[in-house]
């Protein structure tokens, strides 16, 4: 049976329908995969539930339409889908994978192919890349995260029912994917490993010499506070900071790893400890403090640095530990320090959060930081609940897929 080309508005409707079906536990998929994820210890249930809530709020027809409009190419989007016969791919089912075998469908053969390498520390970490690929009109191929083989698989199965020509195949191991020769590849990694990843992709025949790569290298985020923030409501501020630090066990690139503030750590440590206690009571960490974190804690204490326990993480005033896993650095400083750190950590820095309403955010955005490209300001409240069109590493992935 042939399928007509799908216009972007229709794609948006089908994507949202698939996501709704998933959230509404169609075929019992969601319950099964959430249970499996939690019981296998891949992610704590509370983090999975937090993520599901975010998906329900952020993946809406309006949000996707707005994103497409903002990417500025909505009118071109339909052109990505060429007219032609859309044979259903012959799909071989496996646990956590869907591999297309044999030749690609005729229509799919003419559509751009996007390979997404999902690697992450968060549940459903590649959601944005999946949605962007489908929204762009391209065919999705995915290497699922080994830590998240079930959730994404469940969602992709339901999306495949709605957009069969755009779901090329996915697997938890790169070697299991067909040699698709993708036109575009999205992945996350350390700056130093980008070339190694590209080489591996080429070796496996997953990319060609013409393939465009979009590597994302940012690893952590920073908060910038001013005196006014402390005067308003320290308890609420602490709660927001702790959510940004501890949600997803601090592992995401949007997780808060550095705070620059006019007050010293010792002045705020009590507030933070209280807020952390409440957070941890509601969201039990999946692990105790790691030996490497205890090691640094001992070192900081022995050298007379400030160090406090925040859940299974620690917070210290030694900013030379910036970027270390489970270590949050508190720097007593101001705007100049924000700029200095942003320039120093450049490609590793994801967002800079401010504790502010729109007015303060606007004032800060248009202030002296506006000409520092490494600084992307956002409200602290959105640290762990980004909109679907947020820009990892400052790049709109949908616009990139259409432009590259």
């Amino acid at each position, binding site marked *: 049976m042939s399928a007509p080309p799908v216009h972007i508005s229709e794609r948006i409707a089908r994507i949202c329908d698939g996501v709704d079906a998933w959230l509404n536990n169609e075929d019992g998929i969601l319950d099964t995969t959430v249970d499996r994820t939690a019981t296998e210890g891949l992610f704590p249930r509370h983090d999975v539930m937090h993520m599901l809530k975010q998906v329900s709020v952020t993946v809406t027809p309006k949000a996707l339409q707005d994103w497409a409009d903002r990417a500025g190419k909505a009118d071109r989007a339909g052109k990505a889908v060429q007219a032609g016969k859309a044979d259903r791919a012959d799909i071989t089912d496996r646990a956590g994978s869907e591999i297309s075998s044999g030749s690609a469908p005729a229509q799919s053969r003419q559509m751009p192919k996007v390979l997404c*390498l999902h*690697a*992450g*520390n*968060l549940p459903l*970490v590649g959601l944005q890349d999946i949605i962007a690929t489908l929204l762009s009109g391209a065919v999705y191929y995915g290497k699922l*995260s*080994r*830590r998240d083989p079930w959730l994404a698989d469940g969602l992709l199965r339901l999306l495949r029912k709605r957009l069969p020509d755009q779901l090329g195949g996915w697997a938890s191991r790169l070697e299991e994917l067909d040699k698709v020769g993708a036109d575009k590849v999205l*992945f*996350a*990694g*350390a700056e*130093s*490993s980008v070339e*190694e*990843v590209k080489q591996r992709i080429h070796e496996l025949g997953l990319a060609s010499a013409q393939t465009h790569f979009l590597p*994302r290298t*940012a*690893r*952590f985020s920073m908060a910038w506070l001013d005196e006014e923030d402390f005067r308003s409501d320290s308890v609420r501020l602490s709660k927001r900071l702790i959510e940004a630090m501890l949600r997803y066990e*601090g*592992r*995401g*690139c949007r*997780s808060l*790893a550095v705070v620059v503030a006019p007050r010293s750590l010792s002045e705020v440590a009590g507030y933070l400890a209280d807020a952390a206690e409440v957070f941890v009571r509601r969201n039990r960490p999946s692990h105790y403090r*790691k*030996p*490497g974190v*205890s*090691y*640094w*804690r*001992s*070192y900081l*204490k*022995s*050298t*007379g*640095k400030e160090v406090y326990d925040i859940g299974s993480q620690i917070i210290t005033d*030694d900013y*030379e*530990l910036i*970027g*270390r*896993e489970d270590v949050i650095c508190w720097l007593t400083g101001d705007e100049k320090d924000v700029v*200095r750190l942003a320039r*120093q950590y450049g490609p*590793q820095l*994801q967002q800079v959060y401010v504790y502010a309403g729109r007015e303060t955010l606007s004032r800060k955005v248009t202030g002296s930081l506006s000409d520092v490209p490494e600084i992307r300001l956002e409200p602290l409240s959105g640290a762990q609940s980004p909109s679907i069109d947020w820009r990892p590493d400052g790049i709109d992935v949908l616009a990139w897929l259409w432009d590259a």
Partner: protein
Amino acid sequence: MNQSYTTWRNYLFNTDIPFDDKVRTVYRHQLEHQPVYRRFCDDMNGLDENAIPLIPVQVYRDAVVRADYLETPQAVFRSSGTTGMKQSIHEIADLRLYYESCYRGFSQFYDPHEFVLLAWLPGYSDNPESSLVAMIDHLIQRDGTGQSRFLPLDQPLAGADLTTLSNLNTVTYLNTRRHRRSGRMPGATAKPGVTPAKKRRIMLFGAAFGLLDMIDAGAPKLPEDAVIVETGGMKTHRREISKEELRKRLSDGFGLPPESIHSEYGMTEMCSQAWDTGKGSFDCPPWLRITVRNPENPQQVQPAGEEGLIGVMDLANVHSLAFFLTQDRGVALPDGSFRVLGRWDHAELRGCNFLVE
């Protein structure tokens, strides 16, 4: 063990005493006399002599590392310090111990009488307290020929140097020494039974990127038996390149076989050095041990072949801190040697990373 410097020197370089025995002695000594290390071990619950904790090398920046019996150090070494970073400060209580460690270590892997040492260290000229400069200077001073030297920064390796040096041979050297002792003229015909003339080989020391600059500036090819020792420094850094690429470029640039490109692994915080004599991995002198540690649990030693952080047990640091963890990425090999793979990126474990998967 009393605190006499002489006693310590005799003890540490005594090869009849097993390394592990000396480790325990030094460990007990440091627990007693290094308050920062004592606090660290206490908090780590690391008073077990079978699981000696390595303190982060940052301690040389963050604290005053000084034994409680030391009033005035005989020397102070400082790291060059990247902009915005604090310098490491290594106070040397017993300079003779430092020099002995350098020279004895060097002599473990090379015959000092076989080489003329040349050093070109432009990036270090503005750091008079560089431990690297001190080490090489000492090796140069120990060479009785007077030919070993630091090369002038503006004229690193003129062709004339090579001609002069290639004419220098062991007989000349021996005769010069005999002449000093006996009053005989140098160059006089050697008596029957004297070791036949043997040319001295050139050993050129330089920070990795300094040597590349030298090639770019048109350095001449070296004699085929010369040896290059890159000291791993990133001074005059332009971009990062792999060890293999560096070795190839130095080999091509100076016209030497790859096995003549050697390396030295040392740092401000160490009184000893490990040497790569052309096989591509480093070996340690008997009073230095390198282990590769699990970055997520530095108390764990990684098995051979697995990458991790380089951990140092340098017993010549008996008067400072002997047991510490560097930020260098390394891998141990089955033969007990190790490779240095650059700096460890601690942010790798944060955020999403395809390779970590």
